[in-house]
């Protein structure tokens, strides 16, 4: 069984992760370790089937940054909600193995102990600036750890696909929607 994250001394030293050869192996089990040690809740948030309250915290911070430029003024809160529900439905149809990987990614982002060292966002997600969030995404995209590059790619795909599945996004991209049959 993976050790509890809080027992992992590597995490207390910020610089170590970046250079440690074991970092990838650590990351691969971090989410699972967190789940096993009870750090993350497995209960869906009210109104959602899969997304947990911890997931919503960082997704509500992340999504407005990802959708910037594609949402009309004043519509951002509603667009974030629509994206979250579409994302929730997509996750509810993923294979269990892919959902597990996605939730491990969410655990890594959601939990204080992993969030700081891995994202550079040391305070809470609600207080993170757009600049900090863009920096985190940039850092993952260019990370030396393939797991973070994969995480970056998954996050972008999940969120952007969810938003552009919604008819509310189609005005922005000039898509009139499906024809009548």
């Amino acid at each position: 069984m993976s050790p509890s994250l809080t027992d992992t001394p590597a995490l207390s030293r910020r610089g170590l992760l970046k250079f440690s050869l074991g970092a990838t192996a650590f990351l691969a089990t971090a989410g699972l370790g967190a789940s096993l040690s009870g750090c993350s809740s497995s209960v869906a948030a009210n109104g959602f089937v899969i997304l947990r309250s911890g997931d919503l915290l960082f997704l509500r911070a992340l999504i407005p940054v990802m959708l910037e430029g594609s949402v009309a003024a004043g519509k951002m809160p509603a667009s974030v909600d629509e994206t979250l529900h579409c994302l929730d439905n997509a996750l509810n149809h993923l294979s269990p193995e892919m959902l597990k990987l996605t939730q491990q990614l969410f655990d890594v982002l959601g939990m204080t102990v992993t969030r700081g060292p891995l994202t550079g966002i040391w305070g809470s997600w609600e207080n993170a600036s757009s600049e900090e969030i863009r920096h985190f995404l940039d850092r993952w995209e260019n990370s030396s750890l393939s797991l973070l590059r994969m995480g970056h790619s998954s996050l972008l795909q999940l969120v952007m696909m969810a938003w552009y599945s919604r008819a509310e996004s189609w005005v922005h991209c000039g898509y009139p929607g499906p024809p009548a049959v």
Partner: protein
Amino acid sequence: MPVPDPFREGLSRGWKTYNGSQLTQDLTLEADVAIIGSGAGGGTTAEILSAAGYKVLLIEEGPLKTSSDFKMLEDQAYTSLYQEGIGRMSKDGAITILQGRAVGGTTLINWTSSFRTPTPTLEHWAKEHDVKGHSPAEMAPWFEKMEQRLGVAPWRVPPNANNDVIRKGCEKLGYSWHVIPRNVRGCWNLGYCGMGCPTNAKQSMLVTTIPATLEKGGELLYLARAQQLSIKDGKVTGLQCVAMDDRCVAPTGRTITVKARHYVLAGGGINSPALLLRSDAPDPHKRLGKRTFLHLVNMSAALFDEVVNPFYGAPQSIYSDHFQWQDGTTGKMSYKLEVPPLHPALATTLLGGFGTENAQHMEHLPHTHAMLALLRDGFHPESTGGSVELRGDNTPVLDYQVSPYAWEGLRRAFHSMAEIQFAGGASAVMPMHADARYVKTLAEARTLIDGLSLELYRTRLGSAHVMGGCAMGEDPKNAVTDSLGRHHQLSNLSIHDGSLFPTSIGANPQLSVYGLTAQLATSLAERLKNP
């Protein structure tokens, strides 16, 4: 007037089907032949065997969705009709793999391009992979038969603007281009082939071979995952299926036991080898799941002054094979050029990035064209394909490494696509890569492409054609089945799907699967006469 839904009409006339998600108790089903998978290989085999008088049971993991269910909405289609809820990827998460998972398999969601297996491919199999009986002359009548059955003909309507870029660009450059044959009848030219055809124009298995099978008294079991074959003394003695919930995500706890004289595996690349791996099927030479090919795809976007509307119209109607055989069959990595349709959810991930960068790309969607290159993997010694493995929960995943040989081909493909796009009238071109941007001249594009760091995740890679993993060939040391699809070690098991291909095809593979499996199923029908 609403479009008729012949499948639902058939059901109300009494076609025999079982919905795994609704089973309240375990079930045992018997048939002469149990066919696992209802896509191109399974559907074709089912029609031929049931017409020959055998009682056929078709088993499909995914749901039964028919034309009335197809609303041309990306999220509904992706979550219900694609493997793993469109979450299927290579093991490292770097290659998105699009495969169908519903009654009709990938034929339900493919873009209708229908090519005969190229002659150099068939010749290569005979020469290098000890495949017998599949020469171009021997295959021609089977392709012709299936072309007639499925209405395959070159698309007569003018191509949409997205496809027309290939024609215009190739014309200007003196490169060859051709019209794509499509398996449609009475097509409305809507552009939603990838989300299930709402008008039943696409001649998928859902509207052709499966109805024919059910008319003949064949049976269909869906939302049932073929979990394990029971094997004894070189024979399959039974098949255990697990019933899936209506999302096709979790087993319900009910099981279906299938007993048959003969079993045909037609789950396609990845799923067919996976069932054999789960069943501990004999694999004395460790060939199972190996040499799995993808027609790895990279893409290039281009902006046009005029409206392209890449989401409307037949998704694929023009192709170029100019680069496909230029360096011989086994030379440097080569590719077929086509276009993908661009609906918003797919387009946003292909165009990449987020925030204002992605928003600007999406704002130009109606003026955006995209081209794709299908890399012909598996012909060169350095192109060995991937391996299918089982994950912790016994479901499969494909480990596919992109070789330096393939990366070199991807870079050349970026160059070819940019060249044709500019020649076709593009005002700007952007290779689909994280570090790329739109550039306005071919010279700039060449510099940009030469400077791109081609690596996983930064390069947007996909596949819609999984082939191989249960290769056919006469030598059991190198192949899982013989040239008739008969398993080398299990006497009453045949494989009839794209997993048989010893290499990739070098063209969209559906007609290759139809022609090959029509030939194999006809031969099987003869053999079954003598028990």
